[in-house]
């Protein structure tokens, strides 16, 4: 009861706003420079300092510092590599519970130089490391080829090994155990040598992963057919393959206390607004969660408003789409273990763009976008309008249609609202069931099931025939929208409109549209108003929202992202057009 009263209090009574800062608004970069200076002068709360520090690429340590190490009844918590090999070995064996953990392997051996021998061991996790590299590039030089060297007692054995012995292409040294542990988990192989206070970390990652495949959810006819996979490096490589630019920056961080998932923020350094990059980094690094295994989890944690049906972040599994968004000045977030990349900031109209829109020709694309608008209207409003019109405004229906609807409804026992809700619920059930059915049977069964169900329902006079058409058109309309999250949102909103239409007819639907519109108008996605560029009215509305202008007319990037360089191409981007020079000079 108390809780209920608390909830009521919170909803209806007014609370003074606490020291919450303003909602983040994405502004032009020049203004923020001065503000940043001013902010730097003022005494800052410690949390802000930490945030500022987190810009530098030592985030791994910070994340590991926040890690609550479980209270193990262990001896010394080693922070740094010890010079005694036994200590290191025992520490690691304890840490990894080697007696229970069967895929953490250690290999002891001796490094024999001309007249000195050093004890050493390597530790690695079987399954995520490349055996061939360990054998050929680490063990072989250290065990066999040491006799080819000349030095007998080098001053720094680690340096000697690193510079003269090992033929592995990627390695670095470390003294801190947290970093070493992190790297072991990531698939590196660590070398400890007796008497050295550093360890060498070799990058021999080789995880089993799916190869680069066709995209599953965003299918296009024209355009590249590659999609992201679950490995972060492969994904960043795919993006680099498209944007061959030295300004493409891939910042890395680790999210999740237990999962320690690597995560990358990708942007074009000379294009993306530094305020935006700062905000993205700030939000990502301030997350304190346990398990962050999926970009969906991260998306839910960084979006501004959780209780609105619309998504505020686009997730896509196509690298070409991510690359085109990056070249507009947006920022992409890639999470290891998940083939969906997140792109921020977005507007409402971006949710209705398909990847093919840029590759197809102008007349087709604009008309197809109009069809998507019709699909959106149909799938959102059609059942609600049907209920409102047949219950409240029967005079709108032409007489012939009205009489045939009335005649067909004679035997139906339910009121229209109940009919529609029954049919919508059954379609939702069919859709859910269709997802889980195996392979080829699934979608076919879904469609056939729907048709047969509808037909049988009509024959049994549970529903009237026109309802089947309405529900079918609604379902098809929601599938015609490219973004899966938006069609999910529409499914929820449709039910609200049905209820509103049943209660107050067209008045209810209009008021529902108003409240829906106001909610959208007040949403922000990473500081960008959700309904830009229509409201607030920025430039180039026609370029790429509902219509799409020809490519050679799109001279500017979207203004509402406030990129550093707004001009995309000069006014005459087709040099051959109307040019007097008809000769082509070979370069």
């Amino acid at each position, binding site marked *: 009861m108390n809780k209920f009263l608390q909830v009521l209090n919170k909803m209806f009574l007014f609370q003074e706003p606490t020291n919450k800062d303003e909602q983040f608004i994405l502004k032009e970069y020049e203004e923020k420079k001065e503000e940043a200076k001013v902010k730097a002068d003022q005494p800052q709360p410690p949390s802000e300092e930490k945030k500022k520090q987190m810009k530098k690429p030592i985030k791994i340590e910070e994340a590991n510092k926040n890690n609550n190490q479980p209270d193990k009844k262990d001896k010394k918590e080693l922070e740094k590599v010890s010079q005694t090999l036994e200590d290191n070995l025992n520490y690691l064996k304890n840490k990894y519970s080697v007696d229970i953990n069967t895929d953490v392997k250690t290999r002891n051996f001796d490094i024999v130089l001309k007249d000195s021998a050093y004890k050493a061991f390597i530790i690695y996790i079987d399954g995520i490391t490349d055996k061939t590299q360990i054998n050929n590039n680490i063990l072989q030089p250290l065990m066999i080829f040491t006799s080819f060297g000349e030095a007998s007692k080098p001053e720094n054995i680690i340096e000697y090994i690193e510079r003269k012995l090992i033929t592995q292409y990627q390695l670095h040294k470390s003294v801190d155990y947290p970093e070493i542990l992190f790297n072991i988990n990531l698939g590196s192989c660590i070398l400890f040598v007796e008497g050295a206070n550093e360890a060498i970390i070799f990058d021999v990652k080789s995880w089993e992963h799916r190869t680069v495949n066709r995209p599953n959810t965003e299918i296009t006819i024209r355009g590249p057919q590659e999609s992201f996979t679950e490995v972060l490096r492969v994904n960043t490589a795919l993006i680099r393959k498209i944007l061959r630019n030295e300004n493409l920056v891939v910042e890395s961080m680790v999210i999740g206390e237990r999962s320690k998932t690597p995560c990358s923020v990708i942007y074009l350094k000379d294009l993306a607004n530094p305020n935006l990059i700062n905000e993205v980094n700030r939000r990502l690094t301030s997350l304190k969660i346990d398990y962050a295994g999926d970009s969906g989890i991260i998306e839910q944690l960084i979006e501004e408003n959780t209780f609105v049906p619309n998504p505020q972040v686009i997730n896509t599994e196509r690298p070409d789409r991510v690359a085109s968004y990056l070249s507009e000045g947006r920022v992409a977030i890639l999470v290891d273990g998940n083939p969906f990349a997140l792109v921020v900031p977005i507007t409402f109209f971006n949710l209705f763009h398909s990847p093919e829109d840029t590759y197809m020709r102008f007349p087709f694309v604009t008309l197809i976008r109009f069809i998507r608008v019709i699909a959106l209207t149909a799938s959102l409003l059609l059942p609600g309008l049907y209920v409102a019109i047949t219950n409240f405004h029967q005079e709108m229906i032409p007489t012939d249609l009205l009489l045939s609807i009335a005649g067909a409804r004679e035997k139906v026992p339910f009121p229209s609202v109940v009919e529609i809700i029954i049919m919508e619920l059954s379609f939702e059930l069919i859709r859910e069931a269709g997802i889980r059915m195996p392979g080829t049977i699934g979608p076919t069964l879904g469609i056939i099931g729907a048709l047969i169900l509808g037909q049988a329902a009509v024959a049994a006079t549970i529903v009237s025939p026109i309802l089947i058409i309405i529900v079918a058109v609604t379902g098809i309309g929601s599938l015609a929208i490219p973004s899966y999250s938006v069609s999910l949102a529409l499914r929820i909103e449709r039910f609200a409109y049905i209820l509103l239409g049943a209660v107050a007819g067209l008045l209810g639907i209009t008021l529902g549209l108003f409240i829906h519109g106001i909610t959208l108008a*007040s949403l922000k996605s990473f500081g960008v108003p959700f309904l830009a560029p229509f*409201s607030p009215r920025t430039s180039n509305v026609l370029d790429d929202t509902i219509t799409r202008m020809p490519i050679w007319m799109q001279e500017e990037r979207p203004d509402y992202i406030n990129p550093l360089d707004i001009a995309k191409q000069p006014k005459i981007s087709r040099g051959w057009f109307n040019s007097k020079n008809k000769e082509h000079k070979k370069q």
Partner: protein
Amino acid sequence: MKNTIVIGEKEATWFIINMICAKIVLNAIHILEDSAGSAGWILSIYLVILAVIGFYIVLKLFKIFPGKDIIDIGTEIGNSFGRIVMGLIFILSQLFVIVLYFRGFLEHSKIVSLNVSPISFIATFFILCMITACFFGLESIVRLHYLWIPIIFTILIVILLLTLPQCQFLSLFPLFGLGTDKIFINGALKLSIYQEVIFLFLLPPFLVSFDKFKSVGYKAIAFSGFLYTISVLFFGLLFPYPSATEAMFPIFDTARILSLGRLFQRLESFFSIIWIMTAIFFLSSSMYFIIYAFTKTFKLPYIKPLIIPTAILILNLTLLPSSVFISAKIVTDYYYSYSWIPTFALPFILLTICIIFRKGGKQNA
């Protein structure tokens, strides 16, 4: 928070157009026809010219105090007393207006579409929308205006144009209707049709510059005048004079006549979506500005606690008149006769005070 809101020029223009033209769907056309007979369109053009002249005078006042709204100007002139006086004038006059409009829209819905529902049921829906809109704040409301209002008024113009086959040009004669004195002398009082320009006077802190303020005002008045003129024109062409005065909702009657072939015949309920949208936009914005003016007058820091009490107050006042006859009489006798005073006469008085007492930072011409 208030000072970081910036409203663009186009959004403000459509906002003011909606405020002025929301009454087209009620009985504004009826009032114009009543005053001038078949010469309602002449009266409408005359009123636009008067409104432009009135706005020009108001601009002179605002040029002296750039970036300040009318309550700030009251503060500049009369310190706290001036602020409270200006604020109270605005609040009370607009409260009167919103109550009349609300009642008008409720009666419209009740007579036209939802006959049986009790009026408080419909009022609850409207109030819920208004409260939600006020919670989301000024930015969201004004941004949504830019998205919807052009569509709404385009559809209105389309409705009017679609009735062209049934228009009879001869209904406009006799040319001067009820007589030139009725048109030009008595009709000048009908300047109250443009009284919603007073909402523009609260916008200067949100608009970027004085030039934008000027252009918003002129464009809004011009477009509203155009809309009123063609509405009265088409209504006069369709309905001959004495019978036209019987119509309670002229635009609704115009939409009823529309019939294109056998299929598109009884579509006026569909167009009622449009009018309800106009209504809800007007009512939400009006309520927000009343609360905003209240907080500004009495120097209160927060708007949100005041929303629900204001809503309850407006709801109660709306349901006060016992029948449509009383509310229609109040509209005709008081609203259309006197409400031009806070909008046009008051700034003129302030301007004279400024010039006499040489107040104001900038050059007062």
